[in-house]
């Protein structure tokens, strides 16, 4: 479908494989952010624009801790509960009073929160952003097979993303908490009618979502650095993921995240070559990046016009 351009040999399978891997890595990061978002949205019916700020906070806290304790992986372990607590505080003081209001109030309140958190990070850590050092064994590359060589840290991201996804599936499908979460996603009045302490459940879900977003931020920081506003770049894409997947659906978030990760990466990788088949080289180089960025929105519009509830809407009973 792509890579049929004269300059590059037809279907460079190595490149295609590496790009697919890059797409999967991006997709898994998106899933970490989107899973928390879809939980909070699906169960709490709360639109949290500031979810991306937790991704940013995770990155900055982990970056600072890496210098403090001298090891990136240890820093991640310490930073995770911290972002969980931050998530809890946000739930307690901003989200909780707004549950009973409509979505518009959620959106305005959490937009205010984005401004506050972005500026706080600027005040605390300065504008520079932080480059995060990795242990030597993660800085190198791994040869997979043939001439496929990938950075080892990107493989770690994929592994961590898959592990988090597996853990989340176990939590949601095989634990009592998971049962409540699923019940809450399809019918929240029922859950509270059963006498469950809905307040604590909500707080727990919110903190869990914060930790997942924070983890994504921690994993990307050694690649792109921790930087102000990094959360605002990912939050809209994460919203696209949960809408395409179906709000409240963990399965939907997973598949949609991978789909969007792959579309975005493969678009950036191959669209300009594809365009060069039928337009001038300059025009292709100029319009391809913009159009590949547009692809995920086209995908969302198409999905919604065919399935207005997303690909995997949770069953409502």
């Amino acid at each position: 479908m792509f890579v049929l351009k004269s300059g590059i040999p037809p279907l460079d399978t190595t490149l295609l494989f590496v790009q697919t891997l890059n797409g999967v890595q991006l997709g898994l990061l998106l899933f970490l952010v989107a899973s928390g978002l879809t939980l909070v949205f699906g169960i709490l019916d709360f639109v949290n624009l500031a979810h991306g700020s937790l991704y940013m906070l995770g990155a900055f806290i982990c970056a600072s801790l890496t210098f403090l304790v001298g090891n990136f992986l240890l820093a991640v372990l310490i930073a995770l509960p911290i972002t969980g607590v931050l998530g809890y505080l946000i739930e307690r003081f901003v989200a909780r009073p707004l549950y009973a209001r409509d979505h518009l109030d959620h959106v305005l309140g959490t937009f205010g929160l984005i401004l506050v958190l972005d500026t706080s990070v600027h005040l605390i850590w300065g504008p520079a952003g932080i480059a995060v050092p990795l242990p030597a064994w993660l800085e190198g590359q791994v040869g997979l097979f043939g001439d496929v060589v990938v950075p080892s840290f990107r493989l770690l991201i994929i592994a961590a993303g898959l592990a988090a996804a597996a853990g989340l599936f176990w939590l949601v499908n095989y634990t009592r908490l998971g049962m409540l979460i699923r019940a809450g996603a399809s019918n929240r009045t029922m859950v509270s009618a059963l006498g469950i302490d809905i307040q604590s459940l909500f707080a727990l879900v919110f903190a869990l979502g914060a930790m997942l977003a924070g983890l994504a931020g921690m994993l990307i920081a050694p690649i792109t650095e921790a930087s102000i506003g990094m959360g605002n770049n990912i939050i809209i894409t994460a919203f696209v993921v949960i809408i395409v997947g179906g709000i409240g659906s963990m399965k939907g978030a997973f598949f949609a995240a991978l789909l969007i990760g792959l579309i975005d990466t493969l678009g950036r990788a191959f669209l300009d070559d594809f365009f060069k088949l039928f337009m001038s080289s300059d025009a292709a180089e100029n319009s391809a990046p913009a159009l590949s960025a547009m692809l995920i929105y086209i995908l969302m519009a198409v999905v919604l016009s065919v399935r207005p509830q997303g690909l995997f809407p949770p069953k409502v009973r």
Partner: protein
Amino acid sequence: MIGFSRSARINIGVMAILAILPVFFWWTGQTFYLSLATRLVILAIAAVSLNLILGYGGLISFGHAAYIGIGAYAVGIPAHHALYGGMDFIASNNGFFQIALAVVAAAVFALITGAICLRTKGVYFIMITMAFAQMVYYFFVSIEEYGGDDGLVIDTRSEFPLVNLDQPIVLFLVSYVVLVLAMWLVNAIVNSRFGMVLQSAKGNNDRTVTLGYNTYLYRLTAYVISGAMCGLAGALLGNFATFISPEMMDWSRSGELMFMVILGGTATALGPVLGAAVFVVVAQFLSELTIYWHLPFGLMLIAVVLFARGGLSGILRGKGS
């Protein structure tokens, strides 16, 4: 009824201040404050247009900045070709042509996207409107001729007989008149039978359908009117800023328009104007005090949401119910 006359008095008072102060600034040579007021009034027009569908129709559009962009490019592109040649059928500095182009282009875009968006509900509607706006955003990013990401400088403002938009006070007065007309039009729509159906569909769509109204068509009509009005605001903004870039229709700009309406108070005549005023004036003064002004501004937004139901116009009206 006493409440009504009180709110009418407040409306007239605020609109009078909004007219008199900028003239005073112009008279005393405070050009900068005059241009601040012009920006405020133009954004208020966009917010008023959004309020028609968001406040009265319950249709939360997260893509309204696209119409601002379309309107501004409808001024910028003809002016660009009038100066540098090419695309003769569109090259023109004629203000009537540019305004008509802005309104028609915005209306057509609203008609096509609205027809698709209105098939979805709730948060899916929010996101699909955003998706279409992002497509317009990236569309203009990809066009090298009009500057791509760098934007397009509008060298010549729209030309009208007798009215010279190069004079800041004239541009302000024109914008102000458009704002008043827009508010009047929205008010007339809302109080017409059409508006009643629109608001009733917001409250209970199924019942309205049962009553025999095709709410889809009503909503689509409102959506197109709102888009066209916002396109007009965009044409004014292009004339004001003499610069247009895709960044002006980024999702965060659509968000800002939405926040203006919510902050000011949805489904009120004055709400969008108050919201725009806060966004422009408070942001300007805070940003002069410190580069960290987003912190107090964000706290203010959170406080308004937490403690002031019904937005600023709710506070002005003295809380109540």
